[in-house]
């Protein structure tokens, strides 16, 4: 008897929450994460040093090595920020050496193919060339491919857990990769204050991307429910402090010689925020993603494994 009452109570509770969810326009899928107990926090690697290949390698090593993320024969996507026709020193794009080190590690872990791309803001060929990406990755042989965006590969995806974004065109390879490694460059941004890992995912989506700027934090978090990196490596070797996300002046760039890596995309962003003297809660996408249960933003809950060369 007791048993049924409880059941009914639980049932009513769920129904009322569900209908509340409906009135708020929250799809039922988000209920799962609301009820789920928060998973144990994933470690975060923080490595400093002036040899960027070395610190990238060390950061992944602190997380258990690339074998932890990549299985032999895997197709891996590495998604750096190559959005702008800017040089390496100007700090608007991910440092090619960071990408190179990651690609090497991925191959060492037995992956069969590494695909690197970004849907750029400036002319694609100019970005790939002047970011130094083309030259660096071009020497890595046939298993590493720096690909220009192929419009045919954008497929419309239902973002079932989306609160502000329900459907968008997403690059097929980003969704179907066995392992998706997000490699943002940490920099200033006028609207979202900073652009980090979640914002970097805008480089795998098509359509009129400018429209996402309304309620951008929630939209980026929504996007993160379908574009899920197994590993986020934040390139904080140079920090573009002002005039981001494009920069162009060396005096706006601060040398920080830092790599942050984590399997938790929210934690990586949250921690990178502190490099700019901000708090994780200052970045709306971090907050939205944390609320959706996509990761940890409370710094005190994040286990940091540090190394300085």
């Amino acid at each position, binding site marked *: 008897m007791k048993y049924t009452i409880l059941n009914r109570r639980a049932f009513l509770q769920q129904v009322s929450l569900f209908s509340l969810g409906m009135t708020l326009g929250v799809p039922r899928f988000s209920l799962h994460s609301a009820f789920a107990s928060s998973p144990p926090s994933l470690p975060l690697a923080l490595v400093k040093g002036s040899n960027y290949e070395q610190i990238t390698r060390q950061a992944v090593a602190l997380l258990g090595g690339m074998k932890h993320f990549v299985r032999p024969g895997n197709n891996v996507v590495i998604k750096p920020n190559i959005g702008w*026709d800017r040089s390496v020193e100007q700090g608007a794009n991910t440092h090619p050496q960071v990408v190179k080190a990651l690609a090497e590690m991925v191959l060492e872990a037995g992956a069969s193919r590494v695909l690197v791309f970004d849907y750029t*803001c400036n*002319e694609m*060929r100019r970005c790939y060339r002047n970011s130094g990406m083309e030259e660096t990755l071009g020497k890595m042989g046939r298993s590493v491919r720096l690909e220009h965006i192929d419009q045919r590969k954008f497929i419309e995806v239902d973002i079932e857990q989306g609160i502000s974004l329900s459907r968008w065109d997403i690059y097929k390879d980003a969704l179907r990769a066995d392992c998706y490694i997000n490699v943002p460059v940490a920099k200033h941004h*006028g*609207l979202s204050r900073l652009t980090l890992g979640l914002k970097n995912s805008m480089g795998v989506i098509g359509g*009129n991307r400018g429209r996402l*700027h*309304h309620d951008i934090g929630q939209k980026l978090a929504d996007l993160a429910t379908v574009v899920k990196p197994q590993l986020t490596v934040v390139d904080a070797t140079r920090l573009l402090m002002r005039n981001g996300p494009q920069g*162009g002046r060396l005096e706006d760039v601060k040398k920080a010689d830092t790599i942050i890596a984590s399997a938790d995309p929210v934690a990586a962003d949250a921690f990178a925020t502190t490099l700019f003297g901000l708090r994780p809660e200052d970045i709306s996408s971090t907050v939205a993603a944390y609320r959706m249960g996509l990761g940890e933003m409370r710094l005190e809950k994040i286990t940091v494994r540090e190394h300085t060369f």
Partner: protein
Amino acid sequence: MTTASRTESIRKYRALRIARRCSQLFFLGLFFFLFIKTDYTGSDRIEYAVNILFRIDPLLALSTILAAKVFIALMAPALIVLLLAAVLGRSFCGWFCPVGTMLDGAQRLTGSGKKETGPTMFPRLAIVVLLFIIVSSVLNVPLAGYLDPFSILVRALTQAIYPALNSLAVSFFTFTYESAPPAVNVVTEPVYSFMKQTILPFEQKYYDLALLSLLMFAALFAAEFVQRRFFCRNICPLGALIGLVSRRGVLKVGGGDTACGKCIHCRRICRMGAIDEERNVSMGSCIVCMDCLVECPRQVIGFSPGPLKSGNNEISLSRRQFITTLAAGAMIPPILSIRNNDQQQRSALIRPPGAREEGEFLNRCVRCAECIQVCIGNALQPAFLQSGIEGIFSPRLVARSGYCEFNCTLCGQVCPTGAIQELSLEEKHRAKIGHAWFDQTICLPYAKGIPCIVCEEHCPTPDKAIKFRMAEVYDDQGRKVRVKQPYVIDSLCIGCGICETKCPVYGRAAVYVTSAGEDRDTDNILPAAGGAGPY
């Protein structure tokens, strides 16, 4: 002539005709190669002399130099063509010109080449056209670009044929990619990838005046149904100019005369109508195609240096025709000068960075579309009437179509006449071609209280020309919201138009560029606060 020596002479001329065809194919191939290379290839410098076709064009050189009233060193190679014409006749038209080659090729493809070609329909027209162009050029209305064969060709290729072929390829390979079985894609995908790396443009481009550009070019082919090389002999002012030199040159073709009797085979087959009833060959028309030399049954036609055997059959204008043409040409400038000066049109006329002051720009611009072809952002579009009817097909930036890439200087590098001056990267970064304005009635943070700073994000100047300030506005529900509102810093904006290109508002952009404040026009200055300016 013995049979043996006749066979020998036929063999010789046949070899020369094969050489002519090879030459035509070679230069056509070279032309296509240079056309495809008129693009960013990973270097900030254009690697090939992609504009060479226009720099060896004596018509464009003459017209531009007369209009600009200054010697243009870039166009010096055109002198070589004129000198060669004195030695080799109009072989430029028969052996080199890609348009001529295409017209000949079209004849072969349609099989209409066997037809008798008939006498040239309007034998004096081409010279009248040439004279008209020269007169109007002197009077600062250069029209050469509209009838120059190379301009017609490259405009059509750039603005219609090449992008259309790409569109076709993309549709086809998108269809196979999405709908064909994997077995088909194993073949089609490598083919597509190879085509993209070699002959297809990097991105699909879209052009105003695509149809008009194509129609002008197609008209040359349609005219082939009237007679062979109709354009070349009746209209082409470039051919006429070269003909003026070659008729006085050393190369002569001839040998036939009234003794040939009823055989007028040479006259019948001549694609240029260069041979008259007395079998004199007009060297102002002959393009040295070798047909008559190969096919003459008696093998009496040959190369004969020196004066013609009998008379002169070169086309010339009567005094009356000459004066009428001069007068007609001279009427153009006053007619154009009395048009209503529509200032609104001028504000939509954003010229590429490095473009000269408008009058000087139009004097030099030969409408060759090289800048439009090389523009990586698809920003440059052929103007329609924004600069008057004499400015049609000249390049202008249409920012909703594309923006001027901050670190790119290619248009100035390919301009064959210096209408667009070549800028260094530092000069380009500072060159102001126009100015951005916000339309606050549709800009989201102003009109709707919706946050959006896409324009600021993309603004390429290192100290951003678009900044924002916090403002309290009412949204569409009447709620008070705080948003960042973008505004333009006059001294920093260079008018590249990326803000207009990327503005996410559908249709008409909420931020747009005009030519206001452009460097090249001292009248077109921005209103300045504080009473510093004329406003």
